[in-house]
């Protein structure tokens, strides 16, 4: 049986697992919506759409939406389910079967990508009443969903690394908190050129910045290929790195 079919089978199982734990999905949607509403409520009047050039005529909620999308994408539960599999012995059951080690890693990541795609669509729909539109049109919406989903897979890959290395739910959970400093070291309230110099330098070195700017460009402007290339480039590079490191860990898992 090909690794591709095994990946699909394990991915379907991971999706079933998520659907059967709806209580784990609720915060993934609620917290990003909370941040969107609160940030828009607090700063919406500071940045009025008609006099703030970086909003391109939209409300401040449109500027904030990428932060919420990235937050939702980084709340994946794949790694915690993996720890449960490890602790319960099911991971060993799969390892003792002739299952491709790549399928063991990718099955969950692909499921996480699919879940993030649904969350992205839900968040975009929730953002519509706040005056948000996707300026880049239907193609832009597709790219927005794809890019957010790919980021979800990258971050799930990072979390899986912690899960495989520590085999501990507590450590894996704590590892997820890494995303908060990464998120706040981005131009998440104003564009990069308006940040203070130290923050601008930090944001420039932060890979999440480029994903955020790509997502934002899709919401606020027409397709900006150079910005998109940087966003997709970051996701591709870190995605490849995460898959490589995950595979290495699974193959050496003792």
């Amino acid at each position, binding site marked *: 049986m090909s690794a591709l079919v095994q990946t699909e089978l394990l991915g379907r*199982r991971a999706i079933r*697992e998520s659907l059967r734990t709806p209580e784990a999905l609720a915060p993934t949607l609620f917290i990003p919506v909370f941040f969107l509403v609160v940030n828009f409520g607090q700063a919406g009047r500071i940045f009025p759409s008609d006099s703030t050039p970086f909003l391109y005529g939209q409300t401040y909620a449109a500027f904030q939406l990428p932060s919420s999308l990235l937050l939702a994408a980084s709340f994946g539960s794949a790694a915690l389910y993996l720890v449960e*599999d490890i602790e319960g012995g099911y*991971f*060993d059951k799969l390892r*003792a*079967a*002739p*299952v491709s080690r790549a399928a063991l890693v990718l099955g969950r990541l692909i499921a996480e990508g699919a879940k993030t795609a649904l969350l992205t669509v839900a968040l975009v729909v929730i953002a519509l009443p706040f005056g948000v539109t996707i300026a880049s049109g239907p193609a832009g919406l597709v790219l927005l969903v794809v890019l957010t989903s790919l980021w979800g897979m990258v971050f799930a890959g990072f979390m899986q690394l912690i899960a495989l290395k520590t085999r501990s739910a507590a450590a894996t959970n704590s590892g997820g908190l890494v995303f908060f400093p990464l998120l706040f070291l981005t131009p998440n309230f104003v564009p990069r050129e308006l940040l203070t110099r130290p923050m601008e330098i930090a944001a420039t070195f932060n890979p999440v910045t480029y994903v955020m700017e790509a997502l934002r460009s899709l919401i606020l402007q027409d397709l900006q290929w150079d910005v998109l290339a940087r966003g997709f480039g970051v996701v591709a590079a870190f995605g490849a790195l995460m898959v490589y490191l995950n595979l290495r860990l699974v193959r050496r898992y*003792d």
Partner: protein
Amino acid sequence: MNALAIEAEGLVKQYRGRAGTVDAVRGVDLSVTAGEVFGFLGPNGAGKSTTVRMLTTLLTITAGTARVAGIDVTADPDAVRRRIGVALQEAGLDPRQTGRELIELQARLFGSTAAEAAARAEELLELVELTEAADRRIKGYSGGMKRRLDLASALVHRPEVLFLDEPTTGLDPASRLGVWDEVRRINQRGTTVFLTTQYLEEADQLCHRLAIIDDGRIVRSGTPASLKAELRSRLGLTSDPTLDEVFLDATGRTRERVAGDVQEVTA
């Protein structure tokens, strides 16, 4: 003469940690003939599970060689995985799936088509008497039901060698007898069974031959009858000892132990 289902020579497992090197298994030799139920006994921490995990490709082997179903475990682990079934100490189940989904997924991962997997799941669920509970989520199963399901999931691909690591630990007497019946039935169909257990009565009831491991080394091996006869003769007893007494003698956990009794032997 029957072929060997499991062969191990000088099997060693060392763990390296901050506190230094720990020798979990210190040179185990095993020969298990195809078609037999082979018992692997030992006290807690003796190296039973570590040995099973090496033989089932779950742990790397520090030194020595192992062949399962004629295939070198280190050289071609995937080929070994296609020929073995594994039910480990922790029933490796996904509590969010139903029993049927779990078996079908396992069968698909071993290469069955969806239709074949569904048919095999039906057959195995019937075999372990879980047909009625098949569409319920596993998290609601009792300990005995989980063990039986784990056993069924290890059989999806009709393995040549079945590894059972303490399959009855924590089960009530009725469930334990149920698992024994399954093991006998599986063996009668031609599957070699490698069984680790702490229950000596279990080994006495089920195993054609057995080996006792202590502190990472095999200290006794043979048929239950031969081990009892050897102890009776050595200690000059008037009746056959129990397997418990053989075990206690072999692992040095008896007050009557004579210095030099425990020695390394080849199974």
